[in-house]
Structure formats: structure tokens, C-alpha cells
């Protein structure tokens, strides 16, 4: 997971279209079926809009969703 988050640094090139700020890694709350996690995600430092990269959504996140659904 740490390596995955490290790889999110590349999204620093992405900018929030409305604020113009480059995205920064920030602790962000993720919840599902009553469980709460905190993950470093690229976020607009001005408006707080978060970005969920494809590799997270289709990888680790999907895996955890499935585990929680079977609890």
C-alpha cells in the first residue's frame, strides 16, 4: 500500500480545474459498510476535491470492498 501511495506523487502534475492548484497528497477518509480508513490521496489543497486513481479503485479498493461485503 505504501508503494502505491508513493506512486500517487506523480498526480502532483494534475491540477484542480476550478482552483488551479496542483493536487497534493493528503490523509483522506474512506468509508464503506461502517468501516472507516484513512488513506493518502491526491487532493486539491484549496477546495478539498479528492482524486481516486484508477489503480487504487480497481486494485486495493476493490479488494477491500469485497472483503467488507463478506463480513
Amino acid at each position, binding site marked *: 500500500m505504501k508503494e502505491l501511495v508513493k506512486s500517487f506523487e506523480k498526480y502532483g502534475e494534475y491540477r484542480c480545474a476550478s482552483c488551479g492548484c496542483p493536487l497534493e497528497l493528503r490523509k483522506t477518509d474512506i468509508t464503506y459498510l461502517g468501516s472507516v480508513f484513512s488513506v493518502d490521496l491526491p487532493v486539491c489543497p484549496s477546495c478539498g476535491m*479528492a482524486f481516486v486513481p484508477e489503480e487504487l479503485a*480497481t486494485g486495493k479498493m476493490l479488494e477491500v470492498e469485497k472483503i467488507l461485503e*463478506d463480513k
Partner: protein
Amino acid sequence: MEKSTLVEFESKCVQEEPPRCRAACPLHLDGRALCEAAAKGRFDEGRKIIQKTLPLPGILARICDAPCRDACLRQEKGGALELGALERFCADEGPFRRPRILVPKTGRTAAVLGGGISSLTAALDGAGKGYSVTVFRAETGGRELLSLSSLLTEDVVREELEWMEKLGVLFLPWDASVSPEGLAERFDAVYAGLDDPLCRSFPELLGREDPVSLETAVPGVFAGGNTPSFIFRAAAGRRGMKSVERFLQGASLTSSREKEGPYETRLFTNIEGIDPAPPVPVPPRGYSGDEAVREAGRCLLCECMECVKSCAFLQHYKGYPKKFAREIYNNLSVIQGTRLANGMINSCTLCGQCERVCPGGFSMRDLCRTARQEMVLQQKMPPSAHEFALEDMAFSNSPGASLLRHEPGHGGSAFLFFPGCRLAGISPRTTESVYAHLRKVLDGGVGFWLRCCGAPARWAGRRKELEAAGKELLDQWRSMGSPLVIAACTSCLEVFRKELPEVRAVSLWTVLREKGVPETVPAPSAPAALHDPCTAAELPEVRAAVRDLVARTGRRAEELPLSGELTSCCGFGGLQECANPGLAAKTARERCGQSSSDFLVYCAMCRDLFARTGKRTVHLLDLFFPPPGGAGADLPPVSWSDQRENRTALVRNMRKSLWKEEEEMEEEEGTLSLVMDEGTEKTLESRRILAGTVRQVIWHGEASGRKIARPDGTFITCLKPAAVTYWVVYRPREDGLFEVLNGWSHRMEVKGTEEGAP
């Protein structure tokens, strides 16, 4: 699920019943396991199996008279297994290495009269139960054992007797003072082996024993084994010592002992297609290793697995219904922990083939449907399992995708054509053609009723949603004057018949058979394999009508190995395709692999799932209403996105052309035009991201300005219309179109992605 429900389900599956050889053996030696080991040359394993079951294995394995032969199923295919000779080879090939198990002494004493196999078995079993056992036998006992068969040697007999002594069995010489009555006074209980002539000299023991308990006229004295069969002598000794145990416990001597001796097993084994093979002859010296391996290899390894053989789902989960029933019961009982069987429960196609091929009628359909309903009630159904299908159901009943009208120019309807979501989505062209044809051949007004029948809710175990849909269906049907419903889809027909019996419904195919079909010009073509949809398995009249209609096209139809009431599902049934798309593709591929011919189907979903595997498949309606400029088998599969768009377009077109209704203004987002390459389209389809959803996401991103700009000039935006958050990568083009580059989704809720956040 109640425990009694589990037991009822379990009792129908015979896979765990013992093989015939084991049931027929009075000591229940597992001949199937022995053959399985021996066929691989694992004779050490064979010896373990023998010594686990047989007392005096060194003796009995060599002289067993193998009554299992009469029960062996191989008899019908070349000759019964030579199990006795295989036991003998195992015994000759190496030593029995018995672990010495220390049994705590109970303080009880048992006397055993006689030195034959029956007595020695009883003595061994008594020692195993913790009794102090004393055997009274003639001093020549060992020699008498030797005389039973030339296959026994002094060493073998000595080894067995020494083993008994090691276990603490005391051997005392028999003298004139020994009598059953006298021993009954000195010991807690007595067993007399009647295979020993000395025991037969007591008239009070002979011929008077109870056949079940072997109890004699003398209280506390049991006797048996007066039979020429060595293995039955041993079985009598075992039975006698079990009676001693019950006697000492004050328990019933006769209850629940039906399966102690030979009995008939319920195990079913299909031997169709098995080539006959004669037994490997047994030379006087016994088998060689090679001969033993060959003979053991003839064993059919009896098992049922009838349902598993033809079901990709059951094969995938590596088991059989009885095992699955236990897993499902446990799954439903989990309070804290992982529910390991969720995926399995939601992957069954609910086609019912298993109950029709099962000799006991086990229904995975009933089991999985019950489990799904219970999971929904417990609020433990994984949200992702059926959501796509349930959303599709809601979409199908939305104003833009549903339609209920009397025939144009009619104030009422004698009939109501119900095409179903799949046909309307996959082939709006034939939906319109069939409706036009029905209006031509039927009098009294043919209404049109496009909406979902409720099958997805029924398959998903959502009774509440199904009942709500049922109520709406009934209200709509009554509002049309309760006409006869003509259902194009057998799944819809099944829902009407099972859930809404008040609604009079028939199949389109029986109507077409009766009222006629458009003339077709028979094209010279190879025969096609006719596949019945699983929901037609219980509709013989529909299957007959279809065969009759196929004959009218002039096309020759072949029957698949499992057709008619035994037909297999295409992979869509039971929402398998929704909960487990990979398995559904396998289900479809396996079905398609059953014939190299093109397939001919009469269910739109079967047509689509088979076409997705690349199988040339034609829908029967495409033979009567051929597509312009091509054959039905060449039509491409239709994506989920296109199915939805086809349904809304169909509703729009029919309203305009038939009912002359003005088109309402579309939502602006619906007008947004997308372009994407084939790869992106495939990615989105596999991730179940519909074109309509992509439009919605981009529309909101553009309208709100909440989007991420990438250095290459493309944008990423997201939207969470309901439970799922969708992300789309796109590029606005100068021509006003939006080029879609990628898309993904997640169910987890992420702070900062919701609309209006933060």
C-alpha cells in the same frame, strides 16, 4: 435457515453415501479407497485402509471371501473387482504397521469363548473398548487358525496372536470346567464364537441367538459366527462385542443397528458409456504388483456427481450439493467473521438442471434462492452482487424505457404483447416486427406492454421488490382489461406463472405456432443445434411449439446432449452474469462447446451470451423476421449500454410511429455526444459503466466545473449518482463531441469526491 431444512436438503444428495462394496462388506471395508490407492501403486496406503477396518488384518486380508463382489457395479461392465485378491496382495507386499493405541481400562471384564476368527475379533474389539479380555480356547487354537487356508503361514498367525497379547488380551486354555453359565458368573459379559466347534458343543448357545444382538438364552452371554464365510465370522464377533458394550451400558441391544451388517447403499453411479473390461485373472500365487495395479484400475470409483458433470457452477466451486448445503448453512449462521460462501450462493444460475438430473431431486436452485432471500433479510447480501441488474430493472420500468398501450385505433385489448427487457434491448427491430405480425394475425386488439417482469428481483432474493413489482404489474394488467399476455421470454412467463398466477399468460411461441408465421424462404444451410433456455425446461408446450416452428423454416435442428427438460443455462439465469461474469462466460463457453454446429436459440439473452463467446448463434425470430442484408447468426452481441439505448429508442420510435405521440424533451445530458475507441468501449463494458452514466458524469463535471485538469489537456471528473462513484477521463473536442478515454468506479465513499464537497 433451520437445521431441519439443512438436514432435509442434505438427505437428498447421495454423493457421500458409501460405495456398494463398502455397504455390502459386513465390516464395511472401503474397497473404493483401497482400489484408488492400489491403482496408483500405493499399497502401503492400501494396508492402512485394511488395518483401519479389518480385525486380524494379516489373516483376514488373505482369506477374505469378498462378498462385495456380488454388489460390485463393475459386474455389469466386464466382471466384479477382485477385491479379495487385491487385499491379499497388499498383505503380502509389506507388513502391517499398527499404531498401539493405549485405551484406558474401564474396569469391566469380558470372557471370550473359542479361538476362531469370530472369537478373536470379539476379543480385539473388547480390548479396544478398555475391557479386560480373557480368551478361553483349545490349546491347539493357533494350529486350527492355520488350517483355515493354505494362504496362512505360521508367521502370519503368530504375528496376529502376539499383537493381541500386546494389547493385553489374556489367553487361557479351555478345560471341562469352562461353561457359558460359569463364565457369565465370573465375568461382566461373555462372547462365544460359534465358528469354533468347541462352542457349538453347548446346546444353550446354538441356534438360539437373537439375529440382531446375538444375545443367547443365557443372560449376558452373546454368541455368533456359525457361518462358512470368514468375513461374516469376524463381523459376528464385532457385532457380539458391540452388544456386550450396550449390555454393560444398560442400553438397548437392538435399536439403530441396521447399518452394522451389509446394507443397500443409496449411492447412484451412472455407468453409461463405460467400456466393459474383464477382471485380471488371479494366479494361484496371487497378483503381481503390476497385475494388482491393473485390476485396481478397473474400479469405477463409484460416485454420483450427476449434477456436477454438466454444471460449470458446481464444477467451479469444487464440490457437490451436500457439501454446499453445509457451507451455505454455516454461511448463514456466521455472526462475526467472513461469509465464505457468499460468492457461491450468488453464482448459481437457478436453472434447476441439477434437480432434474439428480436421482434424489436435490435443488441447488431452491437452496441458493432460500439463502439469497435470507441474506437480504439479514442485510448481509453484498451490495455489489446484484446491483447492476436491479438498477437495470428500475431503468426498464422508468417512463422513458417502458410503455403500455392498447393497439392503435382500439379502445381495449384482447391480447397484450410482453416482449421483455432483453428482446427489446437486444433486438428492437424484431420486437417491432413481431408486434406488427401479432396485430395482423390476432383480432380484438393487441396491446403493447414493455417493462420488466420482476425476474431480476426474484433471482436476487429480493422478495419485497418482487412483490412491489408484482403489484404494479397486476394493476397495469387490470387497467388494460386483464387481456391474455403473450410473453416472448420464457423467464417472464415463468415469473407470471409462479408469482402472478392471476395473470393469464402464454408464450409467444405457442401463439405463433397456432396463428402462423411469415413465410420464409429456406436458405440452404447446415443443421443447427437447438438450445432450450433454462426457463423453458418446465414448459414442454413451449419447447414443442418451437420445434414445430423450426421445422417450418426448413432448417434442420439437432438436439444437444442435454436438451429439453435437462437443458443447461447460458449463464445469464439467476443473475450469474451479474454476480460472477467470469463464470458466466465459462458457462456459455461450455454450453457452446457441446456442438460444433451453429446454435439456434429462442431467448434473446442466450443469443447474446453465446454470441459474446464467438459462437455463431441465430435467434429463431431472426429466421422469420430476417435482419436486412444479412443472417441472424452474424449479428454482433449488444453491449449493456446499447441495450438500454435501444430500449429508450424503441419506446420513442413506437410512440411516434404507432401512437403519434409527440416526443418529450430529453434531459440535456442525454444530448451530449460521446466518441470512444473500441478498447475504451470494452473497458467500460467490462466495468459495467454505461454510456448513459458517462454522459451524466461528464455533464455534471462540465456544468459544475469540478474536474481535474491533466497536463495533456484532458480532464477527469467524477459523480456518485447512487451507491457507486464513477470517474471518467475525457477530452472536449472542438467539434462539440466528448472523447472518452477511460473510466472506473468504486463503491467506497471517499471524502472530497461527493457532489458539492467539501
